[in-house]
């Protein structure tokens, strides 16, 4: 549906030309949810804007159903491609219904009057994003998350072939983000639209996207199912220069490096998992049973709320019992702090 042909992106200022990425050949298909990921400054926004027709490419073309979107009349483009931006919209004294009605812009007459059919489309789009209870409220009264949903309904009201959403989860808390991604997946399936989003939310993108476009610095776009890109090391390579490590097992950035050595951890289940996480924060990895047995051993003796339960920290002959991970970590800190 959307075809990118040998696209060079970047910007011109005066006579100077800055190329951000070049030679991009890519396709987007009906009903597909694609996440654009990449480190800051790699040119995600430039790519999004160029694909959305908001910025001229330096070379190459972007075609939607075979037509060049940069050569298209703005109104025709708006009928095929809808955009949701990061910027906060004030909305003033407009109700959600009236704001979503602005999405009918390319379909209405000179005065922008909505017909009955237009009103039906507007209400249906509001229902599609699950915002029926917001329909007659003023946009100025909505929370960020609610407003974001209304802006998505407005994009839907254009009845486009594809939607482009830039960093839409940026201002949302975690439950709203998960909800938004779920909603986007459903929209892609139900409306058969192609949806392209850019996000910093690696974890969510890896779980929700049908495909990932990965744009590292230097501008060679890699694409594939998220799992393919994890397995072939593209993620690690893309983010390597950023000073953070991508953990291919978890599909997330590693916040802490395990540099202070390893410890032996006895125990299992959830308690073991979260104990390991706390150790990681202290720079300690968990011994995998191979190689030399480490000098520190932690035995989980039961959930912390049980009487007598806790964490036994064995350092040589020295054993201390701790009733919470907090206390355990504090003890470890006080020991490793000196080294």
């Amino acid at each position, binding site marked *: 549906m959307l075809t990118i042909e040998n696209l060079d992106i970047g910007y011109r200022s005066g006579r100077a030309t800055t190329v951000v990425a070049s030679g991009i050949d890519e396709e987007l298909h009906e009903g597909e949810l694609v996440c654009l990921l990449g480190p800051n400054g790699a040119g995600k926004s430039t790519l999004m804007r160029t694909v*959305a027709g*908001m910025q001229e490419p330096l070379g190459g073309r972007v075609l939607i159903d075979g037509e060049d979107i940069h050569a298209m*009349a*703005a*109104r*025709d*483009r*708006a*009928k095929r*491609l*809808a*955009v949701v*931006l990061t*910027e906060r*919209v*004030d*909305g*003033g*004294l*407009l*109700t959600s219904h*009236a*704001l979503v009605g*602005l*999405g009918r*812009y*390319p379909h*209405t007459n*000179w*005065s*922008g*009057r909505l017909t009955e059919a237009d009103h039906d489309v507007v209400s249906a789009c509001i229902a599609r994003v699950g915002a029926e209870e917001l329909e*007659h*409220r*003023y946009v*100025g*009264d909505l929370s960020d998350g609610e407003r974001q949903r209304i802006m998505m309904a407005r994009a839907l009201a*254009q009845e486009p072939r594809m939607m482009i959403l830039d960093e839409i989860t940026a201002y949302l808390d975690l439950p709203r983000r998960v909800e938004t991604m779920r909603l986007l997946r459903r929209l892609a399936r139900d409306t058969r639209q192609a949806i392209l989003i850019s996000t910093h939310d690696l974890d969510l993108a890896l779980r929700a996207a049908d495909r990932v476009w990965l744009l590292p610095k230097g501008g060679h776009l890699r694409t594939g199912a998220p799992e393919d890109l994890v397995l072939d090391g593209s993620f690690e390579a893309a983010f390597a220069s950023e000073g953070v490590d991508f953990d291919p097992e978890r599909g997330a950035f590693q916040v802490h490096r395990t540099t202070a050595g390893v410890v032996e951890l006895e125990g299992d289940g959830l308690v073991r998992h979260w104990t390991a996480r706390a150790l990681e924060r202290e720079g300690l990895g968990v011994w995998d049973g191979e190689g030399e047995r480490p000098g520190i051993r932690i035995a989980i003796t039961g959930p912390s709320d049980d009487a007598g339960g806790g964490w036994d920290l064995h350092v040589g002959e020295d054993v201390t019992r701790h009733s919470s991970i907090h206390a355990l970590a504090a003890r470890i800190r006080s020991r490793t702090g000196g080294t």
Partner: protein
Amino acid sequence: MTSAALDAAHQATASHAPRDWRTSLRPVIFVALAAAVFGVFVLELAIGAVNIPVGDVIAFLFGGTTEVPAWATILRELRLPRAFTAVMGGAALGAAGLQLQTLFRNPLAGPWALGITAGAQFGVALVVATGSVVGSNLLADLAFVSDLGIVVGAFLGAGAVTAAIAAVSRRVSTITLLVLGLMLGFFAQGMVSVVLHFTTETQGRVFASWNDGSFAGVQWTDFPVLVPFVVIGLVAALATVKPLNALLLGERYAATLGVPVERARMIALVGSVVLAAPVTAYCGPVLFIGLIVPHLARGIMNTSDHRVLMPAAILMGALLGLSADLVVHLPWERHFLHLNAVNALIGAPVVIAVVLRNRQMRTLAV
């Protein structure tokens, strides 16, 4: 628990109810506004140094005769052109203010903020200072504002500022544009002081009386110039309600909705000058109306939808223009209030009340 539930239910109805009755009330509000404009129009004609009975005024308006023949002359030659000027001036400034506030997404925008007014002042100051047309006989003539030199000066000054702004408008953001307009305005006002420094006392007085702003003094012979501008400007304003609505989302969103943003911006800019410049030329700088009227229209109609707001702003502008002039017009012995003083005294408290009363407008969102 119960009281919380009741509270929530109350809030729910409170947020839904206003929309329902206000929306259905809109036609009524429009009729009431139009009726108020007509009512104040008649009062404006009836009240003055010579009071004319309302019955005679209405009879005159519908082609009849007045009890005293001299009344018909007063109405035809003095009060009618003045009242029409107040209607046109108020409507034009109100519509221009609404266009500019939406375009700049700034509740303080208006013909004054863009430097249009100051440009006109500078033009007039130049004409007054250099023109041989200005003499003591002109000063004696109360209708000095209709002097062609002053009108041309005001037009050229306003036009020059607008041209400068329009020239850069394609290359800079609207916020930058607003700053440029303000700075050009201050610069022009500074130049006005410089120019006035070199004028005689008589010339200074001519400028000062134009600069006070007044709907009086415009004559029928001025209408062939004034009316076409205002009509064209108002039609353009009404014809561009759709892009103005899209611009509520900001220029970037508007572009993605298919609005040719640069063209829409140019139309709104030029349109507001076509409305504001001739009014300023003939009436002097009439302040506040362009700033106040859009807020009043939003407050009454409780929407940002320009399909409702633009006609409301035009009616509201006419009403405010007439009302302010009526106050000026009241038989105050020799001393009379200046139009701009009345505008400020009526307008400022009303806007404060509207803005504080309305939750959305307290954030000063356009």
